[in-house]
Structure formats: structure tokens, C-alpha cells
């Protein structure tokens, strides 16, 4: 039963082919047998999962089930879950039991979903490899000597290895799309503000966005239906009405206008990746799309702009982890300064400290204009590039990441190279646009994702294109050996 998409699982549950309890037990068993190898989960929640499954089964019996009732999922450990550990991948929060549910968690609970556990992630979502986690690196199911990408690497690896049919992720600079690409699955980053950030531990507030990590675009649409919507507890959530994201899935792509940014295919892109993407685009042309070259002239500025803005916001967002009210506190502080210094020095890992220090620096008196303010200007330029490009085309397509999954420890001492791997994803966060990564083929036997970027709130269109692509291809149905 673990081979099914949530769409298929939903029908099976309604048909009473099996119960939610049976389904959840089977996933928990898979988690048990594979997690020690893959390290996808920080916490597994078998007891609450079984209880949730039983109550879902009652709903199904009573005919009160919705499309997600009884379907198991995994939450990235960045979402607060009431009464359970929410660590954000950090030693700082290793002892933190969240006293409330994130809005995303509440909505998915209300939809009847069953939480299997909390997935591993780069510490405070800072990283592109999942190696910055306090709980150790996650292994890519396609090659366990390689990383799954990050920061939602645990969620992506869990879905790829079929330890969960679907998972939540968050995406600040590519943290849903890049691991989806490296793990050969589907990952959607919605428009900024489409999914509530309440209860999602903040990394960079103006960029963070939650979304689904799934096997198919259709599943992503079903998940987004439950996740999206205005939340009065998140002032930056969009008041725009939520549509039924499944309704346009089967629309034809006839006349679809695709833009290929010249800057994405500049000769620097790895040839094996480029050929996968070009083949994917050809496939879409066969389905009726027209392709033209477009310009995103400032795209190479997106990495510096992103690392200034994200670091600035994180330096402030992470100030609350001070050892005073929750989280790690050093032993026997001598005085207040000692409490702050040691609690934070002990509680945060290297990459988090690096970004806090960078962020503190760029906001400091005398440097603010040169860094933070300049980065904001770049951000506007990058956004304007997208806006004008999207006046001519419906979507922009390119690679999700410039490479396939890298080896564990490859970038551990080379943060700049790791940062550069975000080149195609961060600009989308800076602009606040929605984008989806779908499996489009393989390079060196590792999955390659194709990124489709749409206009604000054009999630339906993205899901439609991704779904039509998946109807015509079977890349998304490939499974890593040992997990099929």
C-alpha cells in the first residue's frame, strides 16, 4: 500500500480496501526499518499516529471523510506540533516541546491527516545539504553516500523512500524545491503569503513559505487545498480566496507560453542537467506549449541579495533563543552575559552562527546602507525582472538546481559553493513567486528536477502544467533501488 499516491490512498480508504490504522502501521513499520539508515526523522510519533488513524477510521466509517482523512504524512520539524518535540534541527531546541500547533498542522489535522513524525532538516532551515542538522545528515535514498538536499531534506528523502506518502516542507531559498529535485519527487513552493507562517519557526520571515512535498503534482494540489488560506494570526498571509487547486489539473497546455531565461542556460550549466531540462521543455512543447527565450538580467545578483537579507532577518529572528525562557541553557551561568554567550555558543551550530554573525554585521550602524539597503534594492530589481518577463510568458522554466545530489561532506567546509547551488531557487523567494520542481530525468543515475515558476497566485496553472507533464512522463514514478 505504500506505493500509492495520496489520491490513490484516499480512494482505497474510502473503498475500505484497508483501514487508516493498517495503512499507518505499515508506514510506521517502514519508518522503523529504514530510518536508522536514512535518518529522515528526528521524531516518530507511533502512539499519536495510531490514535489519529483510529479516529480517521471512524470518520471514514461514518461517511464523514474528506480527501485527506486517514492519510499519513510527515511534518518538517520546523512546524510546531502541540505536545511534541519541535527541534528545528537544532540542539538549541532539542528540549523544546511546542505548546501549540502551527496553523499548517492544525489545518492538516482538521483535514483528518495522520502525523507519522517530524522530519530532519538543516538547523533552523539554514543549509542546502541537510548536513547542518544537530541530528546528523539525512541520506539520499538514491545513493546513501549522497545528501538529499536541504533544508527540507528529511521530508524529501522520506517521500522518495516511501516512508511517508507526503510531507510538509518550508522553502526560504529553495528548501522545498532543491531537495525535491535531488530526491526525484515533486515539491511546491507557493506564492509568499499563500500558506500561513504561524507556528513555522522563522528563519527569514520575508522569504519563508511552507508547502507540500509529494510524489505527484496532483497530490501537491490536494495538499495545497488543505494548507492554503488566510490566517488572521499571520499578518503577511494573503487574504486572496483559495481556489480548488485540483480543478485545472486536466486543462490542456495548448498555447501555453514558456519562457526560458537566457541567463539559466549560459553555457555554465552542467550539460547533463541542461539536456534533461531541454528534453522536459520539448515534452511540454509536444503538449502544445510555445517556448521563447527571455531575460532575467539580474539573476546572478540573487545569491548575494538573498544571503544578506536572509541573514539579516535570521540574526533578529534567532535572538529569542537566549537561554532565558525555553530551549538550551548553559550550566551554571556566572551572570547574564555569560548566560547569553554560552547558551547561544553551545546551542547553535556553525552554519547558524555564520548567518547570525553575517546578519548582525549587515544591519550594523555604518553597514546597513551598503549591505541591507542595497540588497533590498537588488531584491526589487530581481522582482521587477520576473514581473516584466511574466508579462510575455505564462511560466518560466529552468533547472531547479545546477547539479544532482552531492556527496556527503562535499561542501561541509565550503559554504560559498553550497550557497551557489541555490542560484535558480533563491530569486523566486526574493520575488515571492510560486514555483514547483518536478522530476524530469536523470543525470549520472541521479534525479534531476525541472523548475516551473509562475506568476503570483498562479499555483493552479503550475500544478496543471506539472500534472500534464507527469501524465506524459514517468520520471516521477521512478523509485530508488531498495525503496520500491
Amino acid at each position, binding site marked *: 500500500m505504500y506505493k500509492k499516491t495520496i489520491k490513490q490512498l484516499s480512494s482505497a480508504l474510502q473503498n475500505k480496501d484497508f483501514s487508516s490504522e493498517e495503512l499507518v502501521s505499515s508506514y510506521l513499520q517502514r519508518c522503523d526499518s529504514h530510518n536508522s539508515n536514512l535518518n529522515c526523522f528526528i521524531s516518530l510519533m507511533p502512539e499519536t499516529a495510531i490514535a489519529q488513524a483510529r479516529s480517521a477510521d471512524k470518520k471514514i466509517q461514518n461517511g464523514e471523510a474528506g480527501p485527506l482523512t486517514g492519510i499519513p504524512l510527515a511534518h518538517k520539524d520546523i*512546524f*510546531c506540533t502541540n505536545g511534541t518535540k*519541535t527541534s*528545528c534541527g537544532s540542539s538549541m*531546541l532539542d528540549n*523544546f516541546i*511546542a*505548546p*501549540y500547533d*502551527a496553523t499548517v498542522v492544525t489545518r492538516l489535522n482538521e483535514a483528518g491527516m495522520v502525523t507519522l513524525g517530524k522530519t530532519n532538516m538543516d538547523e533552523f532551515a539554514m543549509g542546502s545539504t541537510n548536513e547542518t542538522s544537530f541530528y546528523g545528515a539525512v541520506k539520499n535514498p538514491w545513493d546513501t553516500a549522497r545528501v538529499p538536499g536541504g533544508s527540507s531534506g528529511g521530508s524529501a528523502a522520506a517521500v522518495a523512500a516511501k516512508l511517508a506518502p507526503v510531507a510538509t516542507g518550508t522553502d526560504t531559498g529553495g528548501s522545498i524545491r532543491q531537495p525535491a529535485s535531488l530526491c526525484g519527487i515533486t515539491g511546491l513552493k507557493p506564492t509568499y503569503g499563500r500558506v500561513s*507562517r*504561524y*507556528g*513555522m*519557526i*522563522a528563519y*527569514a*520571515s*520575508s522569504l519563508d513559505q511552507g508547502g507540500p512535498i509529494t510524489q505527484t503534482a496532483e497530490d501537491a494540489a490536494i495538499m495545497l487545498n488543505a494548507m492554503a488560506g488566510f490566517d*488572521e*494570526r*499571520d*499578518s*503577511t498571509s494573503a487574504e486572496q480566496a483559495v481556489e480548488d487547486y485540483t480543478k485545472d489539473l486536466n486543462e490542456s497546455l495548448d498555447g501555453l507560453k514558456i519562457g526560458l531565461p537566457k541567463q539559466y542556460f549560459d553555457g555554465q550549466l552542467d550539460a547533463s542537467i541542461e539536456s534533461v531540462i531541454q528534453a522536459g521543455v520539448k515534452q511540454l512543447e509536444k503538449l502544445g506549449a510555445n517556448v521563447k527565450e527571455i531575460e532575467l538580467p539580474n539573476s546572478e545578483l540573487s545569491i548575494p541579495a538573498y544571503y544578506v537579507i536572509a541573514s*539579516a*532577518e535570521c*540574526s*533578529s529572528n*534567532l*535572538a*529569542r*533563543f*537566549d537561554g*532565558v*525562557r*525555553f*530551549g538550551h541553557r548553559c550550566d551554571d551561568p556566572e551572570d*547574564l552575559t555569560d548566560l*547569553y554567550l554560552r547558551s547561544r555558543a553551545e546551542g547553535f551550530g556553525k552554519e547558524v552562527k555564520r548567518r547570525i554573525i553575517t546578519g*548582525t554585521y549587515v*544591519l*550594523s*550602524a555604518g553597514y*546597513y546602507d551598503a549591505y*541591507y539597503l542595497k540588497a533590498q534594492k537588488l531584491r526589487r530589481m530581481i522582482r521587477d525582472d520576473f514581473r516584466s518577463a511574466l508579462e510575455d510568458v505564462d511560466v518560466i522554466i529552468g533547472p531547479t538546481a545546477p547539479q544532482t545530489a552531492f556527496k556527503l561532506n562535499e561542501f561541509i567546509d565550503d559554504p560559498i559553493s553550497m550557497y551557489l547551488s541555490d542560484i535558480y531557487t533563491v530569486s523566486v523567494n526574493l520575488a515571492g513567486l510560486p514555483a514547483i520542481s518536478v522530476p524530469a530525468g536523470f543525470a549520472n543515475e541521479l534525479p534531476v528536477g525541472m523548475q516551473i515558476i509562475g506568476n503570483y497566485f498562479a499555483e493552479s496553472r503550475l500544478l496543471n502544467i506539472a500534472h500534464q507533464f507527469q501524465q506524459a512522463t514517468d520520471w516521477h514514478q521512478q523509485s530508488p533501488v531498495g525503496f520500491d
Partner: protein
Amino acid sequence: MATDIKWETVIGLEIHAQLATKSKIFSGAATTYGADANTQACAVDLGLPGVLPVLNQQAVEMAIKFGLAVDAHIADKSVFARKNYFYPDLPKGYQISQFELPIVGNGDIEIQLADGSKKIIGITRAHLEEDAGKSVHDGFFDNTGVDLNRAGTPLIEIVSEPDMRSAEEAIAYLKKIHSIVRYLKICDGNMQEGSFRCDANVSIRPMGQEELGTRTELKNLNSFKFIEQAINYEIERQIDVIESGAEVVQETRLYDPNKNETRTMRSKEEANDYRYFPDPDLLPVCIDQETIEAIKKELPELPDAKRERFIKEFDLSEYDSDVITASRDQAEYFEDTVNAANGEAKLSANWVMGELSAVLNKNNTDITNSPVSAEMLGGMIKRIKDNTISSKIAKQVFEAMCNGKGNADEIIDNQGLKQVTDTGAIEKLVDDVIAANPDQVKQYQESPADKQGKLIGFFVGQIMKQSKGKANPQQVNQLLQEKLK
């Protein structure tokens, strides 16, 4: 080194007024003062991981009201910014405030000084921000406790121009702002509880010099008296420093009311770099003209306007009008009293400022909790005016009203306090007293006319005593004068 230089003081004030909203500025927790520690702090106030602020619109409206009351520009777009620093009573490690784009821009108010002169004081800006919690040092042995009940309470910080030239001007300005925020009912003005606080920036310069001297910032000023004392102390200190050949150091100084002195808290070098930047969790506050107009319509009559109107409409003296309009509640009480007293303003003013105010002070309460309503007081004043009771008996009636014995008419009836105005009855009393005091009559009649006025008091007193205060004093006087001729 004593010099003959005349020094000019320059003062600017930063006032923090807690806004009287029911809930906090970015959370739904209550703002009531004095609750048990940490019982009024929700997940947002605690700065738990993942929580987000949501702006309380009531706080925005209150800030707009203030802006309109001081004739200030209301920004069509203002932005919340984070002020970053570490302190245990600051749960998020930053305070949400406004920096580059405050909600209220340039405004001004007019103050009046003791000599009757008037002066305009500029207001640079006023912005919304959240209050911090409190560190509690007592009762935790060597540790410090943190009470986050106050964390997230809305504040408006009102920054003045350096327009004040003496402690007296500073106090007049402060009192004016204090009165305005209370008139607007946006702040309870309680300085003891910290809902109205003030920091003072003080510097001196040689008279006639344009350039400002180095300023110090005075903190911990929680009463008008302390503010005045602290400023005056600081002026003297700065003069001493400069005249002794040294320089004033830019720093923050703490006022110690016990020793009446200010002392260094932190120097400029130790000052935090707050790393302000726009808070990405909150959208800019956009205010349209319609909203401003709607709020303008709801503005109450402000202290200056009320004061002028009372002088004109009720013929009050400037002094009386000042005292009565010092608080909006008192002014409204007064006006209600006048209405209930058929327009008798002078007596109403005397009673409100006199007996009533004394009773309220004695009971340590304010006019909104007065034991005697304005209608009751006005009803009694009506009876003084129509000669049903004398002013003296009125005091007795008032006391009975304070003790819950009913309204004036009931008390007058029940206790038989109605003034005797029957000429026959008064005449008998006059005759009896004259007959009983032949010596005094003789003395009166032998005295020159200018001394008689004083002597007649004796007879009046006797008669009033006989009548238990109920004889109409004017009638008694008149009859006595006739009969003693």
C-alpha cells in the same frame, strides 16, 4: 573658575504613554495592571518559536487620535521596525517599534506658564511600539525574575523638539500632554504604575549661542516632582562641570529621588547599536483620509477649547477654568452639575473644586467614583440658589448625600433643614435676641457706623444658633439693622 556666562537650558522630552487598549499591541492577551506575574502573557508575548505579531487596530486609532489632537501629520504609510537588543524582559530579543516612518509626524502644542505667558512646543514625532516586561530583583535570592505581563502593552512614544528652556516649561509641556492623552481616553496617565513615563534630554549652552551643548538623557522620572527636581539638578551639575573647565559627557543618567541626584547609567560608547530594520512580520500601516476624518469626528473637545469655552459660557475665572478642565472627567462632571443646577456655574465651580474635591481626596478616589453624582450636586446647588437652604446648611446636606442619605430634597425634607423665610418667625427670633443682650445692643448703638458691621455679626450668630442655621441670613441681617437703629 567662576564665569559671568549666562547659561541657557535646552530640554527635549520623550514621553512613553501606555495606550488604554483592552489587549496588547500584537497579541490578544489582556493589559490589566497588577495581575499575578506572567498570567497575562500568551505565546506571542513569550516570543515562543513560530509565533507572529498581529497589529491591534485600536492602538492605531489611538495613535491617530493623539496625532490629530496635537495638530500633527498622520502618515499615510508607517512602518514597524525591529529594535534589536538582548535583555531578559525582552522576550524576542527585539522590540517592535517604529523608526524611519512613524505614524505621527510633526505637530505642536501651546503651553502656559505661571506668569501667564504662552509658548509653542514642537512635537517631532510620535510612534507606536510595544512595552517590555519587567525584571523583578526582589524575592529570588541572587537571581532575577521576569514578569512578562507588561510585555507587548502598546505604547506611544511622543518625542518633543528641544524647545523647552526650563524645568517649569518641561513640566507645563508634560502636564499638557498628560491632560491631552487623558482627554482622549487613550492613556490612564498613571505615573506611579508607569503608564505615563518620561525621559528628559538636557543640555546647556551660553545664552545667545545657536549650537546645542552636549546633552544627557535622564531616566527613571516617575512623577512631575521628580522630573522637575532631576532637570534642575542636572542643569546645575552641567553648569558646574563646564565652569570647572571640564566637558559634559553624552550619556544616559539615572535619577535617584532619595538622594535627589542623577548619576551615570551608561555612556554613549556603551550604547547599543539597535540594528533597526523593517519588521518583515508586519505589513506597513496604511491610513486613508477617510479613516482620519472619521476619527476626527469622534475627537472630544480638548482641554484648551474646553477651558476657553468655560470662561466664555460660564463666566469662570481663568484660574477656575484651568482647575476644572485639568481632567476631562472633572470638566464633564462640572458641566453636568451646572445643567442640573439650572445653569448656576459659579456655585457649581466652587463646590466641585472645594467640598467635592476635598471628599474625593479624603477617600482617595477620583471623580468618576464620586459618592455624589453631578445630578445630585446640581440639585442641591439649585436649592441654595432658590434660598431653600443656606450655604452653611448645604454643607450638612452635602455630607448627608456623601453618606448615601438620598438626594438634597429628600435630606432637606427628612431632616427639616428648609430655611426659615417667614418674616414673622424671623422677627420673633430677632426680637428675642435683642431683648436678651442689652449690653451688646448698647455697645452697637454707641459705635461708629464703620464698626457696627462687625458687631452685628454677634447678633446674627446668636439668631442662627437659635434657628439651628435655618433662618435666612439676608433677612436676619436686614431686620437686625432696622431694629438696632
